[in-house]
Structure formats: C-alpha cells, structure tokens
C-alpha cells in the first residue's frame, strides 16, 4: 500500500454521494455501449430506419436528466440524441432495442421509431420529429403541475437548430409568462445536420436567448457531467421553488454525422480531434479515479456489468417478432377504437 493512497479523497461536489458518482458513470457508459450495439445491429441491417448517435454528448444527457427527481414525478422530453436522459429516467435498453428493431413488443408496438416513446409514470414524454413542438407540450405538462400545486418539474431538450422554430419561441414565451416549473436544456453541439451554428443564429451563445424571454439563463460544459449536473440542478431547484423557467445551455459536440449515413464531410479533422480529446466518458473516468472517488476496478466492474446486461438484452430482443399487420388498425381514437379495414382488403382473388 503506497503512502499517498492514504490521503483522503477530495470532497465530492454538488452534494453527490459516491454511489451517485458511480451511477452517473454507469448511465454514460450504458448510453455509449448501447449505441455501439445498435451500430452493430445497424450494420447487420437489423435496425429499421436511421440510427442517431450521441457519441461525445453522453454527459450532457445524463448529467442534466440526473438533476431531476424521479421520486417527485419530474418529467422530461428528450431529443433524438438524449438516449442517456431516457435511460436515467428509467427507459431500458430492451425497450430501446425493440424500438430500433420495430418489434411487436416495443413500447410503441412498432408504430414509432428509435427513442420516440414515453412513459409518464417513469417520467419521459417521447418527442415527435417536428422540432420545437415539445416545448409548448412540456409547458402544458408543467402547467398541470402548477395548476395542481404539485412540486414537480418539467424538462425539455432543444438543439441549436430547433431553437429557430416558431414552436420553440411560442412555447418558451408562454412558459415564461406563466412562470411555469420548466427547465429548457439548449444543447449546443455545434451543428444542425450540416448547418453550423452561425448559419442558425446570429448570437454567439444560445444562453443569450434567455434575456429575450425574461427567463433565467445558465451555461455549463456539457462534456463535464458534474458541471452539467450542478448547473441543471440549480435550474431544477429554481423551478421547483416556483421561480419559473431557466434556459440552460450545455456546450458539447456531435462527433458522429446527423445520422449514421452522414459522413460529416462538413467538419474538419482538427475540430473533430479537439473534441475527441474532450471525450466526456474518458474525462469522467480520469476524474473519478484521480480523485479517488472510484477505483479502476470498480469502473471496470460497471463496464462488465453493462456488457452482460446488453448481451442479454440483444439476445432477448433479436428473435422477437415484428407486429401483426392487423394491429395497425387499433387505437387511433378512443371511439371508434378501430379504424375500418379498407374494402379492397376484404376482396378475394
């Protein structure tokens, strides 16, 4: 036993406990490993539709979602790249695999793609593709908290691109006027598909938009999970205390194409290299071990646990069937409960 090992680890920031630090690591690693499994399945053409990575953004998803209090019934609405946020709120790898492989057992029974699914009990409301819409919708969720006097908080993610939509503007403005318990996470990952931020907005930082709505603004290094957690947690506490909306900008970078098919012809190698050096998981791994908050063995054990978990999940989901054709007619409305089968399908020959 070396002498300096005796030195006590520094105090843990942001009022977190050692197990919580490990949990944060677990969710970040789980996010990345799950996506890596999906890439393999995608290459084997077992994924239906596109695959959207959050490589390099795991910290902003996990750190921000972790600031919510599931026991209090907080609810978030993610973007396509917030797989980590979904996992923190209790979505399972099995559900995500089923969604991507369009299984009958998937949360949407094969009706919707990737992480477009929800469970209000566990605290996540899936997005639709039309960017911006989830901001007013989550404002409505937060309004219900306020009307009922519940100490619950809503959180919604928007990208540098989605903030250009009218829906974002209308939603955040109404939430600001109503002083709703809503935290808006502005994920600045540099690009909207191929479009760099300077072609999306004339501001240098997304947090500058807060002033125009009379809401609080905050910013954190989105590749630092603890900083992300701390800043977001303060916004969540403000919301719960009835102090209204906060716009939290998280600075990060999209290290894969918009979707797997996109080779990112529009980014330079230097830019990419600079951000690879800031990988949020490597950084956190170093921080944990250097501070003595976790040992290499503990973290390796978590990695191993995740590998086992995912092996089992993939093995379970792969053979599962896709939905029955006829199920497509169910549940468009409460009444009638079933859409009619078209006449031409009832013909013979």
């Amino acid at each position, binding site marked *: 036993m070396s002498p300096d090992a005796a030195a006590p680890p520094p105090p843990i920031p942001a009022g977190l406990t050692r197990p919580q630090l490990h949990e944060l690591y677990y969710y970040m690693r789980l996010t990345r490993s799950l996506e890596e499994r999906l890439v393999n399945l995608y290459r084997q053409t077992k994924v239906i539709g596109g695959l959207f990575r959050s490589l390099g953004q795991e910290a902003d998803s996990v750190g921000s979602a972790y600031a919510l209090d599931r026991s209090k019934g907080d609810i978030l609405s993610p973007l396509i790249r917030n797989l980590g946020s979904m996992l923190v709120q209790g979505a399972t790898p099995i559900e995500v695999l089923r969604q991507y492989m369009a299984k009958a057992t998937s949360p949407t029974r094969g009706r*919707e793609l990737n992480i477009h699914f929800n469970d209000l009990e566990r605290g996540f*409301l899936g997005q639709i593709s039309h960017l911006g*819409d989830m901001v007013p*919708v989550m404002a*409505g*969720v937060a309004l219900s908290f306020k009307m009922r006097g519940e100490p619950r908080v809503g959180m919604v993610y928007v990208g540098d691109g989605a903030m250009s939509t009218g829906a974002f503007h209308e939603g955040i403005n109404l939430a600001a006027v109503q002083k709703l318990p809503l935290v808006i996470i502005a994920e600045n990952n540099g690009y909207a598909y191929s479009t760099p931020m300077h072609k999306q907005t004339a501001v240098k930082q997304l947090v500058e938009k807060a002033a125009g709505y009379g809401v609080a603004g905050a910013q954190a290094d989105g590749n630092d999970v603890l900083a992300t957690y701390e800043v977001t947690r303060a916004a969540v506490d403000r919301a719960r205390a009835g102090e209204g909306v906060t716009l939290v900008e998280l600075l990060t970078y999209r290290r894969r194409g918009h979707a797997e098919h996109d080779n990112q012809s529009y980014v330079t190698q230097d830019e990419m290299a600079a951000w690879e050096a800031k990988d949020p998981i490597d950084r956190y791994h170093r921080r944990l071990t250097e501070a003595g908050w976790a040992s290499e063995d503990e973290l390796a054990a978590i990695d191993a646990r995740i590998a086992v978990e995912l092996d089992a999940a993939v093995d379970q989901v792969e053979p599962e069937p896709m939905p029955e054709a006829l199920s497509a007619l169910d549940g468009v409305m*409460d009444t009638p409960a079933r859409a009619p089968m078209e006449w031409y399908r009832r013909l013979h020959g």
Partner: protein
Amino acid sequence: MAEVTYLEAIHQGILEEMARDERVFVLGQDVGAFGGAFKVTQGLQARFGEPRVIDTPIAETAIVGVAAGAAHMGLRPVAEMQFIDFISCAYSILTNYVATARYRADLLTPMVVRGPSGGYVRGGPFHSQNPEAAFLHTPGLKIVCPATARDAKGLIKSAIRDDDPVLYFEHKYLYRRIKEDLPEDEEILTQIGQARVAREGKDVTVITWSALVWKALEAADQLEREDGLSVEVLDLRTLLPMDLPAIVRSVKKTNRVLVVHEDTATGGVGGEIIARINEECFEWLDAPARRVAAHDVPLPFAPPLEDFVLPQTGDIVRAVRWLAAY
C-alpha cells in the same frame, strides 16, 4: 325553458362542464376578464378563477401544445382560437402531434379546440374561413359543427367529455341570430358522430351542416310551397367521424342528393361525402350527386362579392329543382 342564443348555448355548455369537472379549463387570447372577442367565455374567469381561465399570448401553436401537454396529465383543456382562421397557425402541431398521440404513443389527449368560423359577415378572407376540409384527412381528430343552439350546447359538452381531441367549429353568423328554448333542468348532450334529420322528406336529400342547415331549410320550405317537392335536410353535425349510415339511409330513400357547404367546392368536404355515397348507394342514385359550395376563390370582402361567392338559398332551390327534374 328559457330562450337561449347559439352563443349563450356554447357559453352555458362550457360553464356547466367547468362546474361539473374541475379538470376542465379554458385558455386563449383575451378569454379571461374580457370574456373573449365574442364574449363566449364571459364571466368564466370571475366564477372559476384565473388559473382555470387563462389569457395567453398570441401563439396558436403554444395554445394547442400547452393544451395537449395538460391533457396528457389528465386535465381537460378547452382552447379558443380568437377566429378559427388562426387555427391554421396550429395546423402542424394539431395534425402531427395531437392527432397521432394516442396511436403512436398511447397518450390520452382529451382536448377541445374551438372558435368562430364562417362567412356571410363581411369578414374578408381571413375572418370568414371554414377549416374543416384541412383536418378531414387527419385520423385521430374529431370535427363537430353545430347548427342549432341545442347542438351548440350538446356538442360542446360532449366534446369536453370526449377522450379524443375534438375540433369544435362554431359559426359566428349564428351566434346571435338564432335562439331556441332549452330546458334548464335536463342535461343536454349531443352524441358525437350522429347526424340529425332536420327535416323529413322523400324526393331529394340535402346534406349539410352549420349555418347552411338554415338556408337548406329555407330552400326546402320554398320548394314545398312552389314545387310541392318534399326535401329531406340532413344536418351532419359531426364531420369526423362521419355518420355514413344516416347518409345512406336518406339517400336510399330519396335517390337524389345534394351536398351543400360553405367552404370552396374543390377539395372541400363535399367531395368525400359524394365519394362515399357513390361507393355505398351507386345503385340507388337516380341522378348524379351534386354539390353547392363556394366558388373557388379566397373569400372577398365587399358585400356583392361575398354574396356572389358564397352559396345562397336560391342556389339550393335551383340545384334541388335540377336534381328533381333529372
């Protein structure tokens, strides 16, 4: 019994549902202390408090989105569009988010979007619209268009209780022009999806809804007086889901049918109705099913222009005569 206007009937319906169910709340522009541009929500804020009657910014997408989010959480929002022409600003979130919520994600979204529709009021192209056709091809939505004070009340109450999102299009021309004795004791509920035979007849069926029900009835009287024709007037009341059995029943009885609506002809709801009739009643038709609908132009403002573009009672009379003589 008390004489109630169409406008008052909508007001009563919302008020009764708010009193009955605390989950019901109203949001929209100027709906609070001011009571709304047409005073439909007058007095509701004073009675139920500000949290349940919310003045919003000018943001139809936000109004609908907020209503949807609140509805997911078990509340029952009634969103007002100051004029229904502005529902177009919420077209995307209504057709993509709200209408699909149950199907794609098992999300309950019990909400009502209502507002003043329709012309004949010199409102010009942006205060006279009838938006039903824009939403007819959207599975997941219900569309109701009351013609009478009784149905105005019965349909708003049923819409608020319905577990599906309902578009409630009220006609501003009828607001103060029609009155009806409504019982104060009994609860008035009009079942969504059920048409109403507004007038029995055997020679020709006129299918219509909202304000044009009244012009159709006027025409029917005139045709009976002047031609001895017996015209059946079917008030659809609900456009989605449509009461096809009622349509088929009437057409198989009269064998001649005219669809009358206020929106422009091309791409209007009439096309769908005639296609259904053609599919279900082909053998029963003694004459082509025809339409009387607005001319294919944006609705102009000047009285001579508006009166020319929109269907009038005389148009229905001439069209029915043509069908009867076919």
